[in-house]
């Protein structure tokens, strides 16, 4: 590819679009996916702290139960359940279902509702 070709603007020009529910949810799937890598590292840290004995585990769980730790866990839960349900919709799309606008809209609201319910349930268990 020549230099000229490489610098051509990419379509779609996201910045000139009015944000729509579908476009916001689409980018949110990616953002939560990236953010969840931090959650994954924390989970790995949790299990590694377990094998280093009680002292290290207590350090880890104090951090877990601090305000910052709880906030991270809260956002992690939001991310996990959102990514979970949006991911399931992607699998349906992969099989060729749910493409018409009515279904896309309905599933978008369902994803948000289910995420809300699951985050709430997770916090209550």
């Amino acid at each position, binding site marked *: 590819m020549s230099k000229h070709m490489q610098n051509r603007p990419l379509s779609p020009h996201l910045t000139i679009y009015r944000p729509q529910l579908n476009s916001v949810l689409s980018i949110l799937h990616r953002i939560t996916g990236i953010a969840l*890598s931090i959650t994954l590292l924390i989970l*790995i840290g949790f299990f590694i702290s377990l*094998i280093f004995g009680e002292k290290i*585990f207590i350090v880890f769980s104090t951090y*877990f*139960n601090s305000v910052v730790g709880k906030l991270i866990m809260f956002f992690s839960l939001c991310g996990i359940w959102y990514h979970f349900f949006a991911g399931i919709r992607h*699998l349906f799309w992969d099989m060729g279902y749910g493409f018409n606008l009515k279904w896309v809209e309905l599933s978008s609201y369902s994803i948000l509702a289910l995420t809300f319910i699951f985050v709430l349930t997770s916090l209550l268990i």
Partner: protein
Amino acid sequence: MGQNIASTRHWIKQRVSSILLIPLTLLFFYNFLNVSTLSYDDVISNYKNPFHLCVAFLFITISIWHFYQGIEVVLEDYIHETNLRNSTLKTLKILCWFLTLIITLAFIFLYRF
């Protein structure tokens, strides 16, 4: 042609990890959310249960690979410089193998506690 086959394989692998993670996420968090607030001994005894141990192990390892498959697509979209992209992916792949190794060892220790 080779690139097409590689892309198809990548696509299939990503679907496989996604589908596996559906039941694993539910099973893992149903247990983990109760466990994470317990004392050290109770957490250890919870993971004495081979079922919980296996679910946690599979959830973490498959998540690591799901992460790698996802980040591969993201980097392909945003890093247009091929060399930079490939070296970033290579580094991440090594990191993923390293994490898989560490977590496997951790779970072996946990099982033998």
